[in-house]
């Protein structure tokens, strides 16, 4: 019984780290650009499909793991240059209109290329099987997922907290005007941040591929969860995305053995509780 809970807790951590990677991109984009990206789930889906396609083409999961997120980030970079940046000065409703449009284009494009039925993605050979710790066995790939996301999370923290780029991103979330007045090219900063945030969603898509596969309608579901995480953690907060992601991952995973029917309910219950107690989220600023 205890082993079952340990199993579910580890599953929850893995799931939570995936949610973290998706949400942290959403939240830094919102923090700096004040832009709501409803295409975020679509780019996550694209990550999963790129994982499938790159595995098919090369047979190497590592290639997919590196090239997949880069390709998603590059597409986001282009989308920001040609489309997204024209909408920054418009109200949020236009951001939603435009990015929902982008999400639909991505979804339909995936259906055209890979068909309407989802694809399952094999677990890479070196990560198949289980790790045995005493009486406890846990799938290797899921353990890899937790550790790898933790490394990426740490690297991202270093980038945001310890580099000039990160300082500019944080400063820009307070005042983009003041950042410009100090001579920083704010448009370049916007493009890079958008590409980075969306690239992280792509990475989450690649990583979750071998567990959940790729299907054309996974975007909206993931987007909804990412918003729940961001609301719980607080808009624009790195720590908030991490803690919020882990909370949702753990709640979802533990509830699936305690009370499967109520798993989704509990997620929104957790969100409602946070909003009631801390309207700006656990780590949000007013």
């Amino acid at each position, binding site marked *: 019984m205890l082993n079952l809970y340990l199993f579910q807790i580890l599953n929850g951590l893995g799931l939570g780290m995936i949610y973290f990677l998706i949400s942290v991109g959403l939240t830094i984009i919102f923090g700096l650009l004040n832009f709501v990206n409803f295409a975020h789930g679509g780019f996550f889906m694209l990550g999963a499909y790129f994982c499938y396609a790159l595995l098919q083409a090369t047979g190497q999961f590592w290639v997919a793991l590196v090239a997949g997120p880069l390709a998603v980030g590059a597409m986001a970079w282009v989308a920001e240059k040609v489309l997204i940046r024209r909408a920054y000065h418009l109200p949020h409703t236009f951001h939603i209109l435009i990015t929902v449009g982008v999400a639909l284009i991505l979804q339909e494009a995936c259906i055209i290329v890979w068909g309407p039925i989802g694809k399952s993605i094999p677990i890479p050979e070196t990560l198949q099987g289980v790790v045995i710790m005493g009486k406890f066995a846990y799938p290797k790939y899921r353990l890899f997922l937790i550790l790898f996301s933790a490394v990426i999370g740490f690297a991202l923290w270093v980038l945001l907290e310890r580099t*000039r780029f990160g*300082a*500019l991103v*944080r*400063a820009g*979330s*307070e*005042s983009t*005007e*003041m*950042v*410009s*007045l*100090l*001579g*920083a*090219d*704010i*448009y370049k900063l916007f493009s890079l941040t958008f590409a980075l945030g969306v690239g992280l969603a792509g990475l989450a898509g690649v990583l979750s591929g071998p567990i959940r596969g790729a299907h054309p309608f996974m975007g909206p579901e993931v987007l909804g969860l990412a918003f729940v995480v961001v609301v719980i953690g607080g808009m624009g907060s790195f720590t908030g995305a991490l803690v919020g992601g882990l909370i949702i991952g753990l709640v979802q995973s533990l509830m699936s053995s305690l009370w499967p029917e109520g798993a989704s309910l509990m997620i929104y219950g957790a969100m409602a509780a946070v909003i009631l107690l801390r309207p700006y989220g656990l780590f949000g600023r007013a």
Partner: protein
Amino acid sequence: MLEVRDIHSYYGKSHVLEGVSLTVGAGELVTLLGRNGAGKTTTLRSIVGVVRPREGGVFFEGQPLAGKEIYEIARAGIALVPEHRGIFGVLTVEENLRIAVREGWWTLSDIYDLFPRLYERRRNGGNALSGGEQQMLSMARALLSNPKLLLLDEPTEGLAPVIVDEIVKTLIDIRRTGMSVLLVEQNLAVCEKLADRHYVLEQGRIVYSGSAADFAADRSIRDRYLALGA
């Protein structure tokens, strides 16, 4: 160095600047005086590109600034120390400084020599500073971008007299480096200690300009336009 030529600026429909012209020469310290709401801040914001003048133009070292992005104007060598100081609360004091650094005369260690208080507080968050410290940080940050022209918007506003003296001393040090300064200030005593020339702005128009000596000699100007009783 800087030439503002007959600019008209608006906030929405309200016509804030109705033809402002002024110049700042190399190495000069020029003040822009005037009552609240006269358009002083708008003049500075029109120079740095935050507000776009609808008529007239701003020229820096002979080049027109019209159509340039804010960051391009900053990189051309104009730094603004804004009225509300613009300190980033989520960054530490040192991060606030580091993001502004551009190659040139001033380095981070020079800045810490000039403002020892900022060195002591370098690991504190920007939101943990007193008003005087924020002002110092804002000035220090502008200097680190090594501008040719420094615009200061009421740097002594709301500060204790001891701190005001410190700011004035710093401005005197800055002048010695040959940097040009355009100073918006309500504190006449401060202006008279520092300036080569003065402009007085009223209702969006320049109503007086003259040398520091002329301004000091003609007491009627301050009664007419400023009524600050300094």
